[in-house]
């Protein structure tokens, strides 16, 4: 009966174009646990009655944003695949803790690639807990093929950005992307991306939800008091929130376009026509179901949606200062690297 209900929900959802949300409910299967017995979670409330999202959150799932081609046509892994991926994840974690590197811990073999993917051995990184395996084969749930629906021009820009990354030219401080310049990696991937795993602390007060992002010390102060969008364009746009039951819906427009330097992943770039809708919902005590819908005719042929499970870090964790400019030796180093490259080229 329960399975039939899920099937009916899926069918209805697909028919009404909101497959994304139903899909995650069915797909939510951290480790190999059964999904159908999860009772609906009673979202805690703040003292003033709003759904409570406060705490430190980090993305700990092992799901690709776009569906890998080998899963083409498949939205979900089988239970056996989930179990095997989970076993592998734990095996790699054990090997990391034993000091192994390269292939043994899920990277490329150092023999094959001393650089790409092995720039820094894993002891330098904060891997956190072993990543959680979900049934989803991609974070993107709409379109159903799990791929970003780029316009042809955006596809070219993406290829251009990928080819430039790390290669240059680096002739000016404007050539590195904004992350390399210690400014920001932008708002679209803020909740789950970052070299440190994208730690975010959510703090609430009556009428406001504030998100503090560790990296770049990004912060968003989102009013949830019923106000409308203003008319000031900003790098992070203009966000207004409202509650739909236990879900926080944040609508952001008025982005400013500062992307002439090109980002490494151009889907994160804002343009003046970007419209971002984020939905925050606690699916259980330790999981935030974070859904983004991105609409921007300059970059995408249609809106797309990704459903991202984000984990709650136990109480006592905190985010730390990230005074990026303090030690961003990378900027002068990559500019002097660019000069060295140019000199070499001229000498040939």
């Amino acid at each position: 009966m329960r399975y039939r209900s899920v099937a009916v929900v899926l069918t209805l959802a697909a028919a009404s174009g909101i497959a994304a949300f139903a899909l995650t409910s069915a797909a939510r299967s951290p480790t190999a646990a059964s999904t159908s017995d999860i009772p609906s979670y009673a979202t805690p409330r703040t003292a003033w009655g709003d759904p409570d999202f406060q705490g430190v959150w980090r993305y700990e799932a092992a799901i690709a944003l776009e569906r890998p081609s080998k899963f083409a046509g498949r939205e979900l892994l089988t239970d056996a695949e989930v179990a095997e991926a989970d076993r592998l994840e734990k095996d790699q974690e054990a090997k990391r803790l034993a000091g192994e590197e390269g292939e043994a811990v899920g990277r490329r073999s150092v023999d094959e690639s001393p650089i790409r993917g092995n720039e820094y051995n894993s002891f330098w990184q904060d891997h956190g807990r072993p990543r959680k395996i979900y049934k989803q084969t991609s974070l993107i749930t709409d379109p159903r093929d799990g791929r970003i629906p780029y316009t042809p021009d955006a596809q070219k820009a993406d290829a251009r950005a990928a080819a430039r990354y790390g290669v240059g030219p680096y002739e000016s401080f404007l050539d590195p992307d904004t992350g390399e310049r210690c400014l920001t990696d932008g708002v679209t991937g803020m909740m789950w991306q970052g070299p440190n795993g994208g730690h975010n602390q959510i703090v609430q007060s009556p009428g406001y939800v504030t998100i503090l992002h560790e990296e770049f010390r990004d912060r968003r102060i989102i009013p949830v008091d019923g106000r409308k969008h203003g008319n000031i364009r900003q790098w992070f746009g203009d966000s207004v929130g409202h509650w739909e039951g236990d879900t926080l819906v944040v609508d952001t427009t008025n982005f400013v376009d500062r992307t002439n330097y090109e980002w490494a992943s151009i889907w994160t770039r804002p343009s003046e026509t970007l419209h971002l809708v984020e939905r925050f919902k606690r699916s259980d005590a330790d999981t935030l179901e974070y859904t983004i819908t991105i609409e921007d005719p300059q970059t995408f042929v249609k809106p797309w949606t990704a459903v991202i499970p984000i984990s709650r870090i136990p109480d006592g964790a905190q985010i730390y200062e990230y005074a990026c400019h303090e030690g961003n030796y990378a900027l002068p180093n990559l500019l002097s690297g660019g000069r060295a490259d140019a000199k070499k080229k001229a000498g040939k």
Partner: protein
Amino acid sequence: MRAKLAVLFVGLVVVLAAMPVRAHHAFSAEFDAKRPIKLQGTIARMEWINPHTWIHLDVKKPNGKVERWMIEGGPPNALYRRGFTKNSLPVGVEIIVEGFQAKDGSMRGNGRDITFPNGRKLFVGSSGTGAPVDSKGGKDR
């Protein structure tokens, strides 16, 4: 059937392994993959700064001259969460660094790997959520 399953799992391994650890900056813009370095020296200073830590290393050359190298390490917040402290790499300790030199040929490099002269690895055995209760610390030296 078994073979088929095995193939499937290998495929899965590749997919999950392929998720890159995103660095703060483009490595190849700063360091030269064709200039691998292996340095043995004593720590003169460690800078606990974002977005990357930097180790200042005094390397004695065969002619007795000492060169001061700067080696880029991991991000301090990540290291702290793993239990790495100021005592993990104190001044005067001897280490061996393997990495790649800066493109401009200066005495800077990244430190992909760090070991102690007796072969012990710098840092194993800590992981967790970053919450104080998870901090195991102390095992890095």
